[in-house]
């Protein structure tokens, strides 16, 4: 089952790791904050759905993250975040995104199934306000495929911390969305140099299929 995949491919980057051996059976999908409050989630919904279908079809673990306050009045959230939660600009009023509200729910199309962990966080990165690492240890997860929104905020914070803690993180560029395209590019650039792999949905699915069923992948590559 174990096999080698491409990892950090930028040749002008010191300390890169060109390829890495991973075990697809110890790989989980982490879907970040694809919730109804978001005005950008729909732009990457099809890619997230493809990844989710693949992980479900192969009985690999799936975890869903949700961001917002745990309590209706948000007094569980640190002060600075409470003041500007979900406010995009100075002109816009802060919106409530509390657990239990429609805004907080995961978007239609990615609804969690029984057997999939849903992790509620009142911070940007999952490692800063949840017991996610406890679950990753329990599920024997070594590698993570990460998608969702917003690329430079909750996705970056979660993926960085996971990679820094030693997890093998594949960030799926076309399955992550950001309000600011430049921020999306910065996250991908830095991530693939210092933290892990940046891949497309197609690449992730092709590489993991290849590791899960080598005979099938070989016959596909030979056009049989």
């Amino acid at each position, binding site marked *: 089952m174990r096999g080698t995949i491409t*990892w950090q491919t930028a040749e*002008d980057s*010191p*300390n*890169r*790791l*060109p390829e*890495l*051996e*991973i*075990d697809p059976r*110890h790989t989980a999908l982490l879907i970040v904050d694809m919730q109804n409050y978001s005005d950008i989630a729909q732009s990457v919904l099809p890619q997230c759905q493809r990844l989710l279908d693949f992980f479900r079809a192969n009985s690999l673990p799936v975890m869903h993250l949700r961001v917002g306050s745990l309590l209706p009045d948000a007094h569980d959230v*640190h*002060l*600075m*975040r409470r*003041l*500007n939660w979900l*406010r*995009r*600009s*100075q002109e*816009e009023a802060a919106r409530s995104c509390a657990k239990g509200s429609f805004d907080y729910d995961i978007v239609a199309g990615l609804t969690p199934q029984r057997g999939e962990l849903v992790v509620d966080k009142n*911070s*940007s*990165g999952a*490692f*800063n*306000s949840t017991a996610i690492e406890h679950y990753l240890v329990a599920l024997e997860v*070594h*590698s993570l495929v990460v998608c969702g929104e917003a690329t*430079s*905020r909750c996705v*970056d*914070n979660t993926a*960085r*911390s996971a*990679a*820094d*803690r*030693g*997890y*093998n993180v594949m960030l799926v560029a076309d399955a992550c969305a950001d*309000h*600011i395209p*430049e*921020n999306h590019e*910065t996250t991908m*650039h*830095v991530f693939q*140099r*210092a933290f*892990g792999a940046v891949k497309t949905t197609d690449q992730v699915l092709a590489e993991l299929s290849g590791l899960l069923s080598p005979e099938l992948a070989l016959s596909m590559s030979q056009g049989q």
Partner: protein
Amino acid sequence: MRAKIPWDQPRPGRYSVAEWDIDPQRSALVILDMQKAYAEPSLGVGLMLRRNYPAIHRYYYSRLIQQVIPNILRLRDFFRTHHLEVIYTRMGLLLPGGQDLPPWSWRRALIRYSPDYLYPYGSTEYDLVSSVEPLPNELVLDKNTLSPFNSTGIDQLLHNMKVENLVIAGLLTNAGIESTAREAGDRGYNAIAVEDACAAYHPAEHAASLRDPSWWVVKTTNEVVGTLGPLLGTA
């Protein structure tokens, strides 16, 4: 003792906190990874950069010598003068063979592929550079990750020392500095990265890292000293 200080820069299309109420006495300076491996031009990554990436070597070490180290020392003098905490981190392998990293981890693979990435505790490269030698009563945290929040008890230590404001300097901007600032800010600390007291391998990466921070802010050494100084009074 609490006072409002200028906080976030206004940014188009973003909500920003213009002023923030802090207790200046509850500040700590975190000096990240100023080790010989990463800050001594002829040791550690310095040898690798000189051999394989000479342009990076020139840019990076001249910035360290001309700007980063002098500013770190200025900040440290300021924190010591005002009896504020100074905390150092060191990054590397805690066990010589890297057994402190999971066997399946990319980091374990990287230390086999690129031996100048992490140095073991006890090696010359692992030591702090002599110019930032700590005093006996200053914390030194050993970690095998970029951010101290991921492999040390820093959260509890800061809680014990009643630190709320983190002033972050050292190496590298887009790796250790940005990760630490992101995690500190996300956990509710008032996190300030000091732009002229840190460095990355490329000026563009340094700038990109600091361009649009969330839940943390970017300030210069002058701004930190100039803002906190009057609030702390003469020591």
